[in-house]
């Protein structure tokens, strides 16, 4: 689900026809070369766009086309990041603040997704329970999660617990909904097959239902780490002593645009890294799925 690759349109290039004298080896070598070239081309354009955008921002800021006070500039953001990394922030070491946010997000992410998977599969496997609870889940799900932040902070204080709770509810519902749907989509014949082969209810759940819900669950895990970060940061906005959200909040209070952008860059890097790790895990688990064959023209 995560690998959306775009095919380049065919642009008047004649399709490769069979030429006598081309061995399999040569064709393979040519194909590998074509794949490599295409990858390089993609990377090249990605870099062009990145540096183009940053350069434009920098120039616009330097030439005062945009107000550097509000919009900062890439160099100012980089300087601020460097300064934070070396000298620390007003709220202590940058790494400590990042660590606080990560801790909140990770605990929320893991507890939320485990709970989401367990409850989703449990209700998905039990028609009666799901009939009873579906209405409550719909009701709770209709609450925009961020409005819970002040309540959690009032109840659980400024520390870790309130942010984890917010990250948890952000993650839980997404994962729950997908796990539930994944269970519902499990192939009936496959379940019947397992039962006739001798599987108990528990074995059916473990050997058939969970693996077939896995791609649904992974689809939700990809977005839900981002949600956990949102939960942690929104929690920090509303009230906290440390964390990236708190840094942003302070930067806002002092009209420090570079500081805000620097914090955003940090969050971006962390979320992308998490996404990358998740994709790697998924690819390992899903080695049974058909690979996209590399088709080069």
């Amino acid at each position, binding site marked *: 689900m995560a690998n959306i690759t775009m095919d380049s349109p065919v642009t008047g290039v004649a399709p490769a026809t069979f030429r006598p004298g081309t061995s399999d080896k040569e064709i393979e070598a040519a194909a590998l070369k074509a794949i490599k070239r295409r990858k390089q081309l993609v990377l090249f354009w990605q870099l062009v766009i990145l540096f183009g955008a940053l350069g434009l921002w920098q120039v616009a800021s330097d030439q005062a086309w945009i107000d550097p006070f509000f919009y900062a500039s890439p160099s100012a953001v980089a300087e601020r990041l460097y300064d934070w990394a070396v000298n620390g922030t007003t709220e202590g070491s940058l790494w400590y603040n990042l660590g606080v946010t990560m801790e909140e997000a990770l605990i929320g992410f893991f507890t939320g997704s485990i709970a989401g998977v367990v409850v989703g599969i449990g209700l998905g496997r039990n028609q009666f329970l799901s009939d009873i609870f579906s209405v409550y889940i719909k009701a709770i799900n209709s609450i925009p999660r961020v409005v819970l932040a002040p309540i959690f902070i009032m109840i659980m204080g400024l520390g870790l617990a309130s942010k984890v709770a917010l990250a948890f509810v952000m993650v839980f519902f997404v994962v729950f909904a997908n796990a539930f749907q994944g269970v519902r989509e499990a192939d009936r014949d496959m379940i019947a*097959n*397992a039962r*006739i082969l001798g599987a108990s209810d528990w074995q059916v759940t473990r050997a058939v239902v969970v693996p*077939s819900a896995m791609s649904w669950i992974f689809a939700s895990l990809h977005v839900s780490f981002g949600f956990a970060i949102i939960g942690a940061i929104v929690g920090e906005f509303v009230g906290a002593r440390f964390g990236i959200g708190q840094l942003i909040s302070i930067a806002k209070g002092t009209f420090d645009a570079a500081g805000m952008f620097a914090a955003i860059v940090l969050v971006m890097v962390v979320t992308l890294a998490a996404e990358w790790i998740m994709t790697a895990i998924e690819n390992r688990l899903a*080695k049974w799925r*058909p690979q996209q064959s590399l088709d080069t023209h």
Partner: protein
Amino acid sequence: MSSIQPIRNDLAVADPAIELINVTRRFVSPTGKTLTALSDFTMTVGRGEFVAVVGPTGCGKSTTLNLVTGLAKPSAGEVRLMGGPVKGIDPRVGFSFQKDALFPWKNVIDNVMAGPLFRGRSKAEAERAAKDWLARVGLSKFLHHYPHQLSGGMRKRVALAQTFINEPEILLMDEPFSALDVQTRTVMHEELLKLWAERQASVVFVTHDLEEAVALADKVYVLTAGPATVKSVYRIELPRPRVVSEIRYDQNFIDYCKTIWEDLRQEVETSYRRASQAA
């Protein structure tokens, strides 16, 4: 040709493996409407007997098999296996699905090992048996392939190994080969007959294909358009062992097909007429 006559359905079978006695199966929709899929259905399969079931589409063939597996319960009447009533899913039953029901996330050998492992046998034992069965269906070289890497015929052979490894005394097959091309299908017929002759299982084989039914079976049941009842039963007195690829040129075989088709055609026409009226 006129020498071919249906036999009486209630003809006593001495030692039946499967009995459906006046079985009715109704489906009740959530809105309370009922649909009768089987009504007053009686069928007897002897031990080691190969029975084929033909009937128009949607008449209730799959429903019949589900009752024998214990996946579903009859609304009236009785289903018995090996002389005892069916209570839940019976470990002596093996089921071959029309659709692919292999586990796509397991490789070939793990798919075949699933049955013994579910039944609590040791991993080493299951692996030994699985390798043995995969050798028999000619897939020893593909132990670590995943289902999507195999052709349709190979997947079907894995499915057969998966079913046979449990050594079912009763084998139920729901149009198992309908998705295969003609050549592969003939190969699968030969393999099935070979395995069946070795195991002496009792088989119920559901199919749309009358020639397939006549080529394989000892007895062919013709069902009526839904709700299904038994219309007639034919005993196929073709000698065994049969060579499926050649039997189709046998005059007796052709006579059987012609006679039974006459019988079946009326039901197929009724079924189509109803479907087009409903539309």
